[in-house]
């Protein structure tokens, strides 16, 4: 006998439709409870991109905070940056770029709601 051949329970299980047998029962129960309609009612008020928008908003706030820290007053960071002129320009340019992309991301995520 071929040793790879599935026998006994192994042979029978895949030929059953276990959930299929219960499906009608489950369908009837859920239909009686207006399951789909209740979810649809709920999601009509749900904003799907809320999380994305929140992420972009936090990203923008983080960028602005960094700009304020590096750009405002004589902080310890400024003391360090004063010794590296080019570095500070690159840093502010980079922060400007990330803030711009953050704002674009935020606006796009809001507009898709």
């Amino acid at each position, binding site marked *: *006998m071929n040793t790879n051949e599935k*026998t*006994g*329970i*192994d*042979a*029978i*299980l*895949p*030929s*059953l*439709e*276990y*959930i*299929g*047998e*219960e*499906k009608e029962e*489950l*369908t009837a*129960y*859920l239909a009686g*409870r207006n*399951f*789909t309609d*209740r*979810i*649809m009612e*709920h*999601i*009509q008020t*749900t904003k*799907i*991109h*809320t*999380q*994305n928008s929140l992420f972009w908003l936090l990203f923008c706030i983080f960028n602005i905070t960094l700009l304020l820290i590096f750009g405002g007053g004589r902080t310890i960071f400024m003391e360090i940056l004063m010794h590296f002129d080019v570095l500070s320009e690159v840093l502010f340019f980079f922060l400007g770029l990330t803030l711009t992309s953050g704002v674009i991301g935020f606006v796009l995520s809001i507009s*898709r709601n």
Partner: protein
Amino acid sequence: MEQSDNSLIDFILNGDKECFRILIDRYKERVFYVGKKFFSNPADAEDFSQEVFIRVYERLGSYRGRGSFAAWIYRLAFNLAVNKYHIKKRTLFEGELPEETASHAYIPEEKVLDSLYKEKIREELKVLPPGYQLVFNLHYFEGFTYPEISNITGFPVGTIKSHIYRGKNLLKERLAVYEYE
């Protein structure tokens, strides 16, 4: 023609919320089935299933189309059960099995393909601890591989294999079926 899950998701993400109704109708029995294995009370299973679909909707944007959508929903359901409802997955594999009745005694191999015998297996599957029913359903009836089930349930592949093996042994014991040599 039936629309694929991915195209429906695209429509939903582009604002057509009604397409989500099709997804719910496509998967509600499966999610509710999982809920019934986690909760003995049907009302709790229903609340759980509803919450799963609401989460699915809220997180549709993070579904990248890698792997099947069914697997993604199952994973979400398992995570919700464990993280919010504090379901201990291990306990799903525990529990007393009801006494076997005389009619469940030895059934000859010739009867293996008999529809009555299949019905008996289905009956026996329903009295197995819920965890075994879940992994059996995922593997044999949904067609997920061991690594996929591991990804869904969070159990290591070895544990899944051993649950399937133990579940089959429980079934065999109850059906008194002997494997061919």
